[in-house]
């Protein structure tokens, strides 16, 4: 049986762990409240750029040392940045716990070496170019920019070519000092973890973090103009496309919202791949390549996405088919068979996910960082099983009844 443990260090850093000594692995991650929404115009893309720089050396380790030592621990390690957080994580065999904690903790005080900074800038620019070539060709970022405005949650995680080209290392140092403070940080762990050992090591190794100097706040953005490199046109043209891409956004539940479980089940009934209202109408019939919906939860708000990919000439008709399904669902709710099927699928997925500590880590860490709450696998199963048709119908009426507020279309422009 997995047990939950938590501890707050004197410097404010919080630790949350779901421990099960039957597991073969231990997963560990640093969750930092530092994401695109925390940046100013002059810092656009910095949370993500900084994430890359954490792998580029410390006072006691070179960049090559960091990568080599991570590999010496076997397992899988990586990092990602979102609108709301930056996460550094690894799954290793339990015998490597102490070495992993020491390494990740050291990495989180990066040297920000000027030469490494210049080299890594090129990698980030390549990453931006890579996503420009991939469907849906920046359309999600564009939809977020229009829906939330180009700042806050609408700010691009990677930044723009322009913001990355003009970035300087001292700006990064200030951003680091402002965001990477113990009170903004959670260490989460799951699986076969030695909790006392973890707390003891972190207390000792992160002690100096409370001495970080507090930099002056960056100057506020001029909200009367767009940040550099940002456009808010709702149509994008990409030469030579075989298909057209449509993204719609609307209001959705937040991470704290009462109806988030109902919304996830509603989205499954509407949009799941391999058997849902949209699947039977649009995918099974060969009308579209993709037709799906999902709620995206942020700490204090949420968005409801619709995504359609099909031939350009079919776009208008398919869009109407989707809208009709949404309206019908908002008006009449879902059937009991659909509800049971979606709940059975969701609960089985939870059970399967619970077998791998590396999968559990993210929900434990993110929830503890944003809400100081823990939801066990069993509680999550209960939350799904408690849902009834009324609650799904209420979520449908709340989120599906309105026309979408934001719509972005990508096509070849001819």
């Amino acid at each position: 049986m997995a047990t939950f443990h938590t501890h707050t260090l004197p410097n404010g850093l919080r630790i949350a762990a779901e421990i099960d000594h039957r597991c073969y692995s231990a997963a560990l991650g640093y969750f930092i409240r530092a994401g695109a929404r925390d940046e100013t115009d002059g810092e656009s893309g910095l949370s993500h750029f900084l994430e890359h720089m954490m792998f580029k050396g410390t006072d006691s380790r070179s960049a090559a040392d960091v990568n080599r030592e991570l590999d010496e621990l076997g397992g899988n390690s990586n990092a990602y940045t979102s609108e709301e957080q930056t996460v550094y994580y690894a799954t290793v065999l339990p015998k490597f716990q102490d070495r992993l904690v020491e390494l990740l903790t050291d990495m989180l005080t990066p040297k920000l070496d000027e030469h490494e900074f210049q080299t890594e800038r090129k990698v980030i620019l390549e990453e931006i170019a890579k996503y420009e070539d991939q469907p849906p060709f920046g359309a999600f970022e564009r939809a977020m920019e229009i829906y939330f405005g180009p700042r806050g949650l609408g700010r691009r995680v990677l930044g723009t070519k322009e913001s990355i080209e003009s970035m300087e290392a001292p700006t990064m140092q200030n951003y680091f000092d402002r965001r990477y403070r113990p009170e903004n940080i959670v260490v989460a762990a799951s699986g076969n973890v030695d909790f006392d050992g973890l707390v003891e090591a972190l207390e000792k190794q992160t002690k100096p973090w409370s001495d970080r100097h507090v930099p002056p706040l960056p100057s506020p953005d001029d909200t009367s103009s767009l940040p550099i490199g940002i456009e808010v046109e709702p149509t994008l043209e990409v030469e030579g496309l075989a298909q057209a891409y449509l993204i719609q956004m609307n209001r959705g539940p937040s991470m704290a919202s009462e109806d988030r479980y109902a919304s996830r089940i509603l989205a499954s009934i509407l949009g799941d791949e391999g058997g849902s209202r949209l699947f039977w109408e649009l995918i099974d019939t060969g009308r579209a390549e993709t037709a799906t919906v999902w709620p995206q939860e942020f700490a204090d708000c949420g968005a409801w996405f619709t995504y359609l990919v099909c031939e350009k000439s079919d776009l208008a008709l398919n869009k109407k088919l989707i809208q009709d399904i949404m309206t019908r669902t908002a008006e009449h709710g879902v059937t009991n068979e659909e509800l049971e099927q979606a709940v059975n699928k969701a609960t089985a997925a939870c059970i399967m996910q619970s077998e791998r500590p590396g999968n559990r880590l993210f929900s434990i860490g993110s929830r503890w960082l944003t809400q100081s709450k823990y939801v066990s696998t069993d509680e999550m199963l209960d939350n799904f099983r408690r849902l009834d048709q009324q609650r799904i119908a209420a979520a449908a009426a709340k989120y599906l009844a309105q026309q979408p507020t934001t719509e972005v279309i990508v096509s070849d422009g001819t």
Partner: protein
Amino acid sequence: MSGSMSTTPSVATEEIRIEKLANGMVVAVQAMPWLRTAAFTLCLRAGVNAESETDAGLASLTCEMVERGAGQYSSRDLVAIQDNLGMDRSSGVATSSISFGAAMPAESLEKALEIYADIVRRPHLPSDQFEDARMMALQELRGIEDEPTQRVMLRLRELQYGDRLGRSQHGTKESLAALSSDRVRDFYTKHYHSGGAILAVAGNVDSNEVMRWASEHFGDWKTGSAVPPAAPSGKSTYESIESPSSQTHIGFAFDAVPFGHDDYFKMRAAIGILSDGMSSRLFDRVREQRGLCYTVSAGTQSLENAGAVFGYAGTTPERAQQTLEVTLGEFARLTDDLTLAELDRWKVRIQSNLIMEQESSSSRASSIVSDYFQLGQVLSTSELESIIESLTLDEIAEYWSTHLPNHYRIVTLGPSPLDTSLFVQ
């Protein structure tokens, strides 16, 4: 033929039980009683190789059609019952085989096997749904056209193995247009049978029960023979696909020994040193030291009768020539400065992954199928660990220097072609 293997366990009591049914179907079961889940993979010899010369895409279309109703179930019933059982399912068409698989709470397994017996043995193949299935396949083709990396790698595969062995499972617009419901029915009748079939099950199961279910559901299935693979016929060449893309997408491939060959793990270790992990040669020297790429990688691939290494690098057009030269340069000079530390890191990585595989019934089920398919036996985790452990640096260096990559196949997609004369004969 039946038998069981039991070896000294390194991580848990490990026993893989393998039996062959009278009709030729192999059933392999690994009990993992510490899990709550079970998973199966069912592999049949109805892949791309079994298509006729003109029927490209037929294996995939048949795979789609068998799931559109089977036994007492309609297409929608099948989805409903599988969702209710909590089955996370997948299917895939490969060169020599087609695989159906699912992971689920362990108590669903018995019913799941019964349903899949219906799908592969008693499909309705409804002709009134054929057009829908064909449209679906065309949608997928259009999807690939918008994905530069996929386009490059699919074309590269054709050049590596030759048109027939390297044929894409997606078919072409023209080949799909020529297919019919009758062709699907013929393909199904000829190639869906127990000959060469493998059913692997892993998870919280009782192997006696699984054996009983397997023989109940598949024991009286007709047998047949597998279509032998086409001979590899790829040649060293370069192809450039012009596109106004932001990056130049570079794909490269060369011949290598397949899984099952005596030298396989030496080759695999060499590629691991080049590409597995953040301290690997390609990641360190192409990305970390020079900032040329965000993505650069290489991996091995094994078919029944051929093997190859495939690699990819994506970079902005003005740095594409340098990226190509630096990346392939690392393959050429691998043995110049090979160190024991690199090999040790690779070993730890593989060993960690093997141990962590014990947490996933679905990874075990698919490993069992791939082992049996390539080797005719299943390597237990401890056998694989000892093979990996025994590899020496000298063996790898010796293998690499006598099998230096050459005869490259290269495909690029980007605004302009590259100079590949150093690598392509």
